[in-house]
């Protein structure tokens, strides 16, 4: 299998120059995503206004896959309604885990399809999305942590 299927050019580029690599302040939602196994560690912060993602950022450190995933996630979701966000999140998790995933409407995110063939790296791609999910769903608390291992 070619490594380029995993590390698509776009992933390498977003790893080098991550977009929205910042803390959103003030934010309405945030969560800390951590993979104790490899030390990937990010905070995802979001400002929701009128059901729309007004701003979203991520900050922290981790591997190329997780960083590019944060970059492309934030780029994709900014300005989108919550419904779309949660739906995209489900589709993304499917994309990187299910063999028969439909990848329509995922836009640039399809570059992560190759991750599926690298099962130990699935958690890297999913980490920021798990943190996003946690931030939006556990709205009450503002300082959550999710752990993937």
């Amino acid at each position, binding site marked *: 299998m070619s490594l380029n299927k995993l590390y698509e050019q776009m992933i*390498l580029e977003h790893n080098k120059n991550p977009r929205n690599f910042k803390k959103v302040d003030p934010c309405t939602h945030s969560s800390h995503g951590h993979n104790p*196994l*490899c030390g990937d560690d990010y905070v995802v912060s979001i400002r929701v206004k009128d059901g729309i993602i007004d701003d979203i950022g991520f900050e922290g450190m981790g591997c190329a896959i997780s960083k590019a995933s944060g970059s492309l996630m934030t780029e994709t979701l900014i300005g989108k309604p919550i419904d779309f966000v949660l739906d995209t999140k489900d589709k993304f998790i499917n994309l990187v885990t299910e063999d028969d995933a439909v990848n329509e409407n995922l836009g640039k995110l399809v570059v992560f399809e190759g991750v599926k063939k690298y099962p130990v790296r699935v958690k890297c791609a999913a980490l920021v999305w798990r943190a996003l999910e946690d931030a939006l769903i556990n709205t009450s608390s503002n300082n959550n942590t999710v752990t993937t291992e």
Partner: protein
Amino acid sequence: MIQKKNNIRDDFPIFKNHPELVYLDSTATTQKPKAVINAMTAFVSDDYATINRGIYSLSYHATQKCLAARKAVQNFINAKSEKEVVFVKGTTEAINIIANSYLNHVITDSDSILLSDMEHHANIVPWQQIVSPNQIKVCNITNSGELDWDDFKKKCQNNPKLISLTHVSNVLGTINPIKELIAYAREHTDAIIVIDGAQAVGHMAVDVQDLDCDFYCFSAHKLYGPTGIGVLYGKYELLDEMTPYQTGGDMIELVSFEQSTFTKPPAKFEAGTPAIMEIMGLHACINYISTIGFKHIQEIEYSLYEQLINEVQSLKDFTIHGESNHKAAILSFSIKDIHPHDIGTIMDQEHIAIRVGHHCAQPLMKRLAVPATARISIGCYNTSEDISKCVTALKKVVDFFK
């Protein structure tokens, strides 16, 4: 001397079955030679029975074989008596036993214990279950990855109740001067001294009497032996003083609902049906290592390590963690702007198995100020070709993320 061909490799079926495999994660666990696999297969196919309790010949002979294995371990580490050799699940269980059955009974709130900044979680977390954080003193390490002698001396002034140190660091590769450290501690403290030998026993001769440690712990699976078995060595008087750990069959003398009395060490610490098959495997791996000899093992490992160190010089932005003059053949490293996880994946594509992560040594990662490292570790079955392939792959990694 560079190892061109390594005959030892032929003893390990995994390399026949995976000719492409470059296995450089022996610090995590070692592969198993035919001699060990066959010993276990032969035992369960031909001689299997429970031990200690059976009056029939099959059981008697199995019992004798376990005793022979215990004596082989005794000789291997030069314990005074085979009664000082307790069979346990592994290093982790051994340290848990010391924490629960020894330290727990002697520590008071005003006492401290002394660990170091390079310990594996197995030599940190069990102590934390017994003492509070402020009772744990931690010996610093120097920038080259050695125990800081001055700090060690300073922290001995507290007269710690227990000192527990790793013999060889599983991340830095540092071989600690434990004989000297123990001698110093004996002179200046009353501490009970525990040595985590997980990374030492497969690579150098260990003499517990010469070291004069109180406890020494190791796992067979890092010694070319089976999983599920390891050794807690303890001075007999200490083992005898200690409370039992797990309780049940085979470690009691008399049981009534009112009271039970326990047998003597080592049986006192070996409740339940032992890992009989694994004990045979442990004996076989000790025999295997003894046949090769540590001199030869070290020749192989050090020559390959030298080759590795020389070849990685050419890599850009390559940082080595741990540059002691006394090192085992373990190389932890970082490459600037490339996460260890990505290194590991790319190496795996080239069939090179190295370890990336925190190596169960998070406090050390903090000390090194890295989230994780990549680690290459060498066993007696590795070859010069393995090292070359590994370095070629590392170059690929660097190019790929350039």
